[in-house]
């Protein structure tokens, strides 16, 4: 809501307050001043008449004008297309300062110019700059422009919260200011002088939908003369951000901005018999004042005559019945439409207006009838004509001030304050909420413009905000709540992230949505996806079912920025659809990605390992943090992973994710020139398994007895086929005897002298006995058994 401070001051004496003081006072009462637009007072700008206009001899788009301020004539070069002889215009004389422009004598293409004819923008009024501002014909010449067009004002942009539609008018803001600054309010009178013709002889109003339209009044003003509205009214409308159109429309907009009551004026010539307030027919069409055709349905309310819709109720009038230049008699609508209906209609049509904005928030229906009189008399005053006797239509709403009872002690208890009941009453009274004291109780009569107040807490807020929130102290809640240990999700997430940070990974954070095309590369089951109905763009349309597609993008971006070693991770939610009308399954996933070399360039000769093993090490480190062990199984059928370099991950025998190099086909498709490794695990599963093992079982956790005797080790170098998995060999070894306490692979070798298709794999077996120090005699038979088993199960022979 844009409010002209000059206009505001017509209703409340604030001359001793600066604009900042006024804005701050209202802001701290909840009506936030969000912006200021100062329309500077101008000097050396006067009204003048264009007496002559000729084409510029050297420029097509310029003209040379003679203007007079009544005493002197000036030659001016003007570039505006709309300048014409006979116009009254704002004229900036030599020495005037308009924003950054200082008016000086000038020569434009060889013709001397002594001033400037101004546009609205040049005067600082609006952004309008299509031509010069043309003033009404009866404007006196040579007058100081400041008293004419509204310069020398500040427009404050207030943010009226949705609960306070009463702040959407200048008088509403003035009412608030009266309470904040504790000053009296001066409101205009609503008196109407009527002639002796009865409205009912000209028009009837039939309200079919009284629930959707509880109040509808029509007044008739006859003999109006359409013309531009007076400059003072135009200035106020411009300040409020409304473009002046003609005197009738301007009066309706003026009352809208002054009081917050939407009005609409119809030309009576286009109304067939009477007005009907009814539901629209399905597929009924109307062309609105914005020139667009709208298709209505049965849920929407229209103002109609017997043959056609005249207006979309509360939203916008129809083009056909609008006021024309030759309109003589207008029907003025002043109504109250039910908020939800207007809101639904406005949403469905995608059409909103100053009227619908106020109706859907709720107007002061207590003032509707009175304002029909006020607006009608203003039309008669501004546009000429006489107001017919009476009003057509009716009020079907019982208008009364609701009572809300609140308790002083309870309010103080809620606020943590110690306010006196009399002070509370005075505040409420100053807000026009008339309040009686009854013991500890406050009995308040709520005015019709304050539909936001219904409960004690609403009264508490009124008291608190006018008293000032700064008057409330600072305390801490005293409670006997049990303090939980932090949830495993929070703790485990933090541990995993800190671990990966220490392992050299950079944490990324990506949007949960990506493009359908891109996501489908990795997850081909469309039913998995949760899809947005109104995405910002097509590449943010579907919710992720994996994290790694985002990480791949991040790695590519950073690669293109020149990074040669990229290690990223993200721990975030993924979403699996359960049908679009249901909540989705949300799980935490942890994803890691490596592109380029694993480490930054270094002077150190690092072992040349397949990146797979680094990534697997990082992942094992994280999983190991929770005392869990991951099992890796060869994965050959995952379409986005390299068939020879990928594994599925299992925790406690449950599938938990995968790790591997991206499939060359995918690399090609995504135009990735570097090797790219990814891993993704179901972190929610890891949390559950780890929690069950480590925390749920806390009370039964016991240490394992260990041997006091030294262990001994034996190395075996084996020849096996290349595709034999190390883990399988180890499992076989371990199964042979309980005194085998550890088995590791300490060397793997392929190539000469080993025959093609075979590899040498060396294992180190550790033997430990609980009872004694082992000797060769104890070990040798076991070694024999191991070798037999390895040969039988894996075709392994000693090298």
């Amino acid at each position: 809501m844009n409010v002209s401070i000059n206009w505001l001051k017509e209703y409340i004496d604030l001359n001793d307050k600066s604009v900042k003081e006024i804005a701050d006072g209202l802001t701290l009462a909840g009506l936030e001043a969000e912006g200021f637009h100062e329309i500077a007072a101008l000097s050396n700008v006067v009204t003048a008449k264009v007496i002559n206009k000729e084409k510029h001899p050297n420029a097509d788009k310029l003209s040379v004008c003679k203007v007079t301020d009544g005493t002197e004539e000036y030659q001016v070069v003007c570039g505006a297309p709309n300048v014409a002889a006979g116009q009254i215009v704002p004229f900036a004389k030599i020495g005037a300062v308009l924003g950054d422009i200082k008016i000086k004598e000038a020569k434009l293409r060889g013709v001397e110019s002594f001033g400037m004819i101004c546009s609205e923008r040049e005067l600082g009024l609006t952004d309008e700059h299509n031509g010069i501002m043309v003033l009404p014909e009866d404007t006196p010449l040579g007058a100081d422009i400041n008293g004419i067009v509204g310069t020398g004002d500040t427009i404050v942009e207030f943010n009226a919260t949705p609960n306070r539609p009463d702040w959407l008018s200048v008088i509403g803001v003035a009412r608030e200011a009266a309470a904040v600054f504790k000053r009296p309010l001066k409101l205009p009178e609503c008196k109407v002088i009527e002639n002796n013709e009865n409205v009912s002889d000209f028009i009837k109003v039939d309200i079919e939908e009284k629930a959707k339209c509880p109040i509808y009044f029509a007044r008739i003003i006859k003999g109006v003369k359409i013309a531009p509205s007076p400059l003072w009214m135009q200035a106020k409308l411009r300040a409020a951000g409304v473009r002046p159109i003609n005197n009738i429309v301007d009066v309706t907009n003026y009352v809208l901005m002054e009081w917050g009551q939407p009005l609409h004026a119809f030309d009576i010539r286009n109304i067939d018999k009477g007005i009907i307030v009814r539901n629209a027919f399905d597929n009924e069409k109307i062309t609105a004042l914005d020139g667009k055709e709208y298709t209505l349905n049965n849920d929407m309310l229209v103002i109609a005559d017997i043959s056609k819709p005249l207006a979309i109720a509360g939203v916008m009038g129809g083009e056909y019945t609008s006021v024309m230049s030759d309109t003589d008699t207008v029907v003025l609508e002043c109504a109250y439409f039910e908020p939800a209906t207007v809101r639904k209609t406005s949403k469905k049509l995608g059409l909103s207006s100053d009227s619908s904005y106020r109706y859907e928030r709720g107007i002061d229906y207590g003032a509707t009838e009175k304002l029909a009189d006020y607006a009608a008399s203003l039309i008669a005053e501004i546009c000429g004509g006489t107001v017919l006797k009476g009003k057509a239509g009716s009020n079907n709403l019982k208008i009364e001030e609701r009572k809300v009872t609140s308790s002083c002690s309870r309010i103080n208890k809620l606020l943590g304050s110690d306010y006196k009941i009399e002070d509370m009453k005075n505040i409420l009274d100053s807000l026009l909420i008339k309040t009686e004291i009854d013991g500890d109780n406050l009995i308040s009569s709520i005015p019709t413009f304050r539909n936001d107040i219904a409960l004690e807490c609403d009264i508490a807020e009124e008291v608190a905000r006018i008293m000032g929130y700064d008057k409330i102290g600072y305390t801490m809640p005293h409670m006997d709540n049990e303090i939980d240990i932090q949830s495993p999700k929070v703790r485990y997430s933090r541990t995993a992230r800190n671990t990966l940070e220490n392992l050299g990974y950079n944490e990324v954070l990506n949007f949960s949505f990506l493009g359908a095309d891109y996501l489908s590369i990795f997850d081909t089951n469309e039913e998995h996806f949760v899809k947005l109905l109104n995405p910002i763009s097509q590449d943010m349309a579907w919710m992720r079912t994996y994290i790694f597609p985002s990480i791949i993008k991040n790695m590519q971006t950073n690669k293109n920025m020149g990074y040669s070693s990229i290690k990223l991770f993200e721990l975030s939610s993924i979403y699996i659809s359960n049908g679009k009308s249901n909540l989705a399954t949300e799980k935490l996933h942890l994803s890691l990605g490596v592109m380029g070399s694993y480490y930054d360039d270094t002077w150190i000769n690092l072992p040349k390992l397949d990146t797979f093993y680094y990534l697997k090490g990082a992942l094992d480190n994280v999983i190991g943090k929770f005392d869990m062990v991951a099992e890796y199984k060869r994965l050959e059928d995952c379409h986005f992973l390299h068939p020879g370099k990928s594994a599925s991950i299992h925790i406690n025998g449950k599938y938990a994710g995968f790790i591997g190099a991206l499939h060359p086909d995918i690399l090609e498709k995504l135009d990735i020139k570097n090797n790219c490794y990814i891993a993704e695990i179901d972190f929610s599963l890891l949390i559950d398994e780890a929690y069950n093992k480590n925390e749920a079982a806390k009370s039964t956790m016991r240490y394992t007895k260990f041997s006091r005797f030294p262990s001994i080790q034996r190395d075996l170098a084996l020849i096996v086929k290349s595709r034999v998995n190390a883990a399988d060999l180890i499992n076989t070894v371990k199964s042979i005897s309980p005194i085998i306490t550890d088995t590791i692979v300490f060397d793997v070798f392929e190539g000469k002298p080993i025959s093609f298709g075979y590899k040498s794999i060396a294992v180190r077996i550790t033997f430990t006995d609980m009872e004694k120090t082992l000797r060769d005699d104890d070990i040798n038979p076991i070694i024999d058994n191991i070798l037999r088993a390895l040969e039988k199960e894996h075709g392994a022979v000693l090298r």
Partner: protein
Amino acid sequence: MNNDELKKASEFEEEIEKSSSLDELNNVRIKYMGKKGIISLLNKVLGTMSPEERPKMGEAIQSLRNNFETRFNEKANTIKKALKDAALSQEYIDVTLSPYPFTKGSLHPVKKIYDEIVDVFTAAGYSVAQGPEIEDDFHNFEALNLPKTHPARDMQDTFYIDENNIVLRTHTSPVQVRVMESQKPPIKIIAPGTVYRCDYDQTHSPMFHQIEGLVVDKGITMADLKGTLKLFISRIFGDDLDVRLRPSFFPFTEPSAEVDMGCVHCRGKGCRMCKGTGWIEIAGCGMVNPAVFKHVGIDPEVYSGFAFGMGIERIALLKYGIDDIRLFYENSLKFLKQF
């Protein structure tokens, strides 16, 4: 035995002193102490002496021997130490070379602030609650006193999954509802999480993070809310910043307020960042609206509570002086590695 022999036997001192290596030193030992060494041979002379002379001479020889050992060991140690020093002086590495690359990575700045805020509140006895990001209309709006026809719904641009019922949650407030549905007072939780709004520019991200706080018990006051927020702001931004509550509107709280804190840039003096006001908006808050309590079956006659919510990105922007929210989601290593 004559003095010449003893004198000759005493010459080892000079020879030990002159030795420059362990080998030379050993040769001296052999020369004097070996089987046919000069000192060893003195024993044979001893046998030829009279019983009267013998003890005296014996003592002299023993003293000679002891002296030899002492001198020998001293010199041996000196030589060994010199050798060790020489060897050590050869062992040299460039300690300024880069280490084995156990290089630290980084945590995302938004998550860092997220952790920091969670820590502040958990230290004050708050539990962490979480809820779904894909939320139903009831929890995201209806139960928070935001019926479908309410214009306050326009305050948040919503992503819809299903026109009527399923949305991406627009705030973390539905977690309040879910907690109160399942838990009776006293309640003291924070709900950090990801939220979504259909808006994308320099200051708006379609996905961002919020932290919601909810405290419900008997006798909770608005002064408690102010105290809590002041504590929070002093923990995150420092003790010297003022806190101000400004009346505002949220359907789920009444009274409601916006929380302003002294500008982190000019410390409240007024600058471009705070548009000269000295204040920066940091959170929304208020006393839980009885309508919300009714939706979850908590008696507003018995209990009261406060709630607050704030954007984590906004706090990160302020704290790190970042001017474009989109930087958080570009994931450029040039940016990430700074944290």
